[in-house]
Each structure stands twice: as structure tokens, then as C-alpha cells.
């Protein structure tokens, strides 16, 4: 199947190095201490953050840092076929672990010992790149909740089909069986904190694909910064100048 036409257009009309359209909205969930809604093309996710608050399960309390918990779920209606188990299956467990560890790397947990921070991420519509969208949404939600962070974390995926590196795969391109590289970086220092890859790739091509994904992350970072700045400006207006 041809994923890149001879003119260089992908199935949805994008160029190989073009990302899908990004949309973000901060404050999507009123009750939560911080929340955000993030769209990458047709992938829509929502993230809610609660904390820092008292640890619910005393036995898990950490004396010198905050406990970060994360739960990743996919809504029943998020994919074509109705999902029977939204959470608790192995893929969700692994992605929850991955998101938690990625956010833990950027949250300054030592400033909030003996407390708990909960991150809930739910996928409303899945069209490839759900992991990345969730991390981007979580970053926004954490910033909205005012939790101190070293740096933002942004994430993007890239693949390699028809001998072309492609940025930001959608579901059809992802299920084509080609490699799928997901990268999460700390934009200020361009250090890589999340890196996952499956399928097979020779090493030099992998380097190219990883670089492409990193560029994508930087683009997402710029967008997220803009959104945050705007929201902050809005809030400042209300709280007096």
C-alpha cells in the first residue's frame, strides 16, 4: 500500500515532515486542580491533575518527595470497535507507567514531600499518537495546576514508510506495520526523556527518524508555550493589574 504518493503527499494530504493540526484548551475540567484538552489532528485527549494533596494511602507515602500517580484510560468509544476494557489491560498499564515516569522527571517532587499528585488522562478519540497527545495534555494540566516543574515535556511520534521518514503518524500509518518512534523531550535543554520504538530499523535511519520526531516535539513546545502564555495573560487581567 502506498503511504507516500510520488508527489510526496501522504494519505491525508500532508507532507512527510508536516505535523497534524494542534489545538489545546486549558481548564477543560472545572473540578480538577488543573486540566487541559489537547488535539493532534483527530486524536483528542483530556487530562486532569489533582494535587498536591494529602496522600490517600498512608503506606505509600514518601517522606522526601511527592508521590506521582498516573492513570491512562481510553474511552469505550475512542476507537472504531467498542473497547471492552478501558483500563487495566496491559497496554494501558504500560502507558500509565510511561507517562508517570516521564512527568516525574520534570516535576520538582522534592518541594512537596509527603503529598500526592494524581494525573488522569483519558483518550476521547484515538487516531494514532495517543501517547504523545497524553503527555502534551498532562504538561498543560500540570502547568495549569501550578505544580512546579523544571521544564515542559512535549512529545511527538515519527515513522518510516516507503523509505521516507514521516512525522506524526495517524492510525492508518501506524498500523501499517512500519516502525513507530515516540520521543518526549525537555525543550529548553533538548534532552530526551521518553524514547520508545518498535518494529525494525537500521541504526542510521533510526537516527534520522529520531531527529525528525525531536523537531516535531520542539514545534509542539512552541505551541504549548503560546497557549500557556495566553491563558496566564488572561488570568492576570482578572486578578488586577
Amino acid at each position, binding site marked *: 500500500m502506498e503511504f507516500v504518493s510520488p508527489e510526496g503527499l501522504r494519505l491525508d494530504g500532508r507532507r512527510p515532515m508536516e505535523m497534524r493540526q494542534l489545538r489545546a484548551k486549558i481548564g477543560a475540567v472545572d473540578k480538577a486542580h488543573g486540566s487541559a484538552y489537547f488535539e493532534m489532528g483527530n486524536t483528542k485527549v483530556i487530562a486532569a491533575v489533582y494535587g498536591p494533596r494529602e496522600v490517600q494511602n498512608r*503506606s505509600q507515602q514518601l517522606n522526601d518527595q511527592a508521590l506521582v500517580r498516573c492513570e491512562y484510560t481510553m474511552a469505550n468509544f475512542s476507537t472504531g470497535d467498542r473497547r471492552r476494557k478501558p483500563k487495566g489491560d496491559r497496554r494501558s498499564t*504500560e502507558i500509565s507507567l510511561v*507517562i508517570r515516569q516521564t512527568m516525574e*522527571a520534570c516535576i520538582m517532587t522534592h518541594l512537596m514531600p509527603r503529598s500526592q499528585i494524581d494525573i488522569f488522562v483519558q483518550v476521547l478519540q484515538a487516531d494514532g499518537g495517543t501517547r504523545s497527545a497524553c503527555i502534551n495534555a498532562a504538561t498543560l494540566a500540570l502547568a495549569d495546576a501550578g505544580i512546579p516543574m523544571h521544564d515542559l515535556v512535549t512529545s511527538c511520534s515519527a515513522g518510516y514508510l516507503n523509505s521516507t521518514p514521516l512525522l506524526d503518524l495517524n492510525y492508518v500509518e501506524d498500523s501499517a506495520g512500519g516502525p513507530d518512534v515516540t520521543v518526549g523531550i525537555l525543550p529548553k535543554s533538548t*534532552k*530526551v*526523556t521518553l524514547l520508545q520504538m*518498535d518494529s525494525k*530499523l537500521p541504526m542510521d535511519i533510526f537516527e534520522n527518524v529520531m531527529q525528525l520526531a525531536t523537531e516535531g516535539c520542539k514545534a509542539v513546545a512552541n505551541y504549548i508555550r503560546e497557549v500557556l502564555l495566553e491563558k496566564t495573560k488572561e488570568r492576570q487581567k482578572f486578578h488586577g493589574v
Partner: protein
Amino acid sequence: MEQRLSNTWRMTINEKKFIKTSLLADLRVDGRRPFDYRRLIIKFGSEDGSSEVQLGQTHVMGVVTSQLVQPYRDRPNEGTLSIYTEFSPMADPSFEAGRPGESAVELGRIIDRGLRESMAVDTESLCVVTGKLVWSIRIDIHILDNGGNLVDAANIAALAALSTFRRPECTLGGEDGQELIVHPPEVREPVPLIIHHLPIAVTFGFIGEENIVVIDPTYFEEAVMGGSMTATLNTNGDVCAIQKAGGVGVLPSVIMQCLRLASVKAGDITNIIKNAVKSFNTERSLRKIKRHNSSVIDVSETAQKVDVKFSTNHVNRLKLSEDSRVAQGNGMEVDGQISQKEGTSKRDSSAKSFIGGPSSWDPHSKGIDPDALRASFASRVVLAPTEKLEDSKVDEPTDIEPNQPIVDDNSYISPKEATNTKSKTNEEKTLIDAIKPKHRRRRKASSQH
């Protein structure tokens, strides 16, 4: 709360600091250098498809089993592969019995990604009836002792078990040709899996502020490290999977460096696995030969005269030479592959009943005197299991001298010479190989005359 406190394992501040400071001097606490692996020992169980791996103090067991199932709807002509991990509390007090925890799921998925997406195991050959029946391969990983770096050890255990696993042979038969017959191992030799390449997982730990990289972290280093990355690669230079699930941030250049280092380590580990599997297979085919001999003896009607114990292959071989046709027929099965590999040997005239191959007996030669041979063979008990075909004798007269026991040796040897070059790479052990040393000795004795 006190109970929970007293049971958790903790590190002292001194240990944490020491591990980091000694790493600054390129030293690890167990005396290794930062890029050294611990000692790797691979052992196999008596059954096909079970392996036991020890990496330093980490101890992992892998078992592979197969079952006939219906294929997935969207992949009707492919078999399935699934991985289950068992983190037993005996390995580490922090593992809980029952449902696998997060790290168990992560480990299973890392190994799964490495094997499945990179097509390491050929799933299309597992199809029996398209759309109806395929083989489902299940890999169970049991963690017996957690000394750190479970991912690498479990991956090696899974690969070793897959390499030695054999599934039963099955054919379609029955009255209407639609019935599936699964042959038990005694009737038909079970079939190994087709493995295209071995994806080896190499885990790196990032410790300290300067992100010092260590390979194969121990339990203590894992407790101190800020992040880890597991790279799965094969020896063809492909990256099969990478897992760096958060943790401390690392520069992309460091990541590429780690990948290059990992490919070197993957080569080493692949060799170790291949050698271990090779010696297991040799041992297995030896056992197979013995079993096969006894069945030949039973079948052969001319299995009269000798009341000998067929405990030595030499004696068995004696039987075969007397009833060459039957023997060859059966020998064919054993050496099936070899005979196809070798071309016809010099003795084309005898080819009608003799298929070329390392078998070096000439069925049409003058028979050996059974009693004489039996006596001499029974007195020597030598099996050279790892002897290869190419270390046969040097120059031998190829003409056959009749009417002497020694004659047969020569005749045996000549075809062997002819097939020598062809059989260089062939290591399947046959009846003849087992007897070879005897012949060589006798020949040498004769050549000294």
C-alpha cells in the same frame, strides 16, 4: 505503619553516595567496568523449549509451549506469539503475588515488542489451516531471583527457549483429508521454529548528575539510577525496539552512543546464545540416535542372531550393515537432511539403495564378521559427540581390499572422504559419526602395517 517500614528494603545514604562517587572514577561496586556485563550462564532443561538463564545474581527461567487455536480474524494465516511474566515474591520481597504489577507488565511488553514487531519468529510458518487452525506459541517467563536487570535476562531466556523449542509435526489426513493429525514426537520428529534473527535487549542505567552510563545495572545500581533505557538490537545492525520510559533527560548524542555500544554487546550475547543452543542440539540429536537405533532393531526382521545389548552404537551399526536396506530406509529418516545435502558419492553404483551422505558404510561390501566386530566394539566405549565430519583421516587409500575386517574400514572411509568437503558444515550426528573414532583408530592401526 511500623510493619510496612520494617519490611521495606532501603539503602543507606552512604551506599548511594559511594556508588555515585566510585562511578566518577569509572569503578563499579562489584569490580566491573561501566560497560561490562555480568557473567552469563545459559542452561537448558530436559524438555525442548525450556531454558534457565543466570546473569550474575539474577536468575530467570523461560518455558515455551504451543497450542492449536483459531487465528485472529484480521490475520488468518499467521500464528500467534504471546508472552506471560511471573514475578514471584520469592525473587524479591517487593513483588506481590497475584496480578502482575507495573514492572511485570512493562517487562512483558518490552520482550513482546522486540520479538513480535521485528518478525524475529516466523509466524506464517505456524499456519496449519488458513482461517481455522494455527499454532499459538506461548512464552512464560518466571523470575526466580532479582539481582537487577531483569529485562535482559528474561529476553535471553525467551530467545534461548524459542531456539530450542520444537512443535509437533502435524499433517492433514483422515478420510476426507480435512482431519488434522498431530504426530507425537515418537512417531515424527518435532519441528523447530523458524527464527529469522535474535533481538537482544541491552539495558543502560543513567546514574548521577552527569548521567554516567552503566550497562547491566545491579539491584543496588537500579535503586540509585535516575533513568534507564533498554535497546533491543540484532546482529544485522537493526534496532528492533527501544524503551526509555521517562526518567532523567539524556542528550540525543548519548542515546546514539548507547545504541552503538549496544550493538557490540548484542553481538557477544548472540554468540553465547548460539553456542549454548548448538551444544544443546548436539546433545539432543545424540539422544535421538540412541532412541532411533532401538526402534530400528525392533523393526528389523533380520534382527536375529545377536543377543547383544544394543547399548553401544557400534553394535547397532553392525545390525544395520547386515540388513542394509532396512537400515538405510530408517537411516534415511535420521539423516534425511544430510543425505539431501550431500551429492552422490563415488559409489554411484550402489546409489540405488544408498543415498549419499556421511554414512560411510558400503552396503555391498563384504559383510563384517558379526561376532568379531561385536567383541571388539563392545570392549571400547567411545562416543565423540562433538566430533565433526571434517576431522576424518588424512589420506586414505580409496581402493577396497576385500576379505578382511579392515577392508570395511577403508571402504567406510573412502565415501566419507568424498563427502568430506560437502559435509564440512553438516553437524547432524549420525550413527556413523558415533563409530567413526573406532574406525579411525583401526585404520591407523592398519596403516601402520
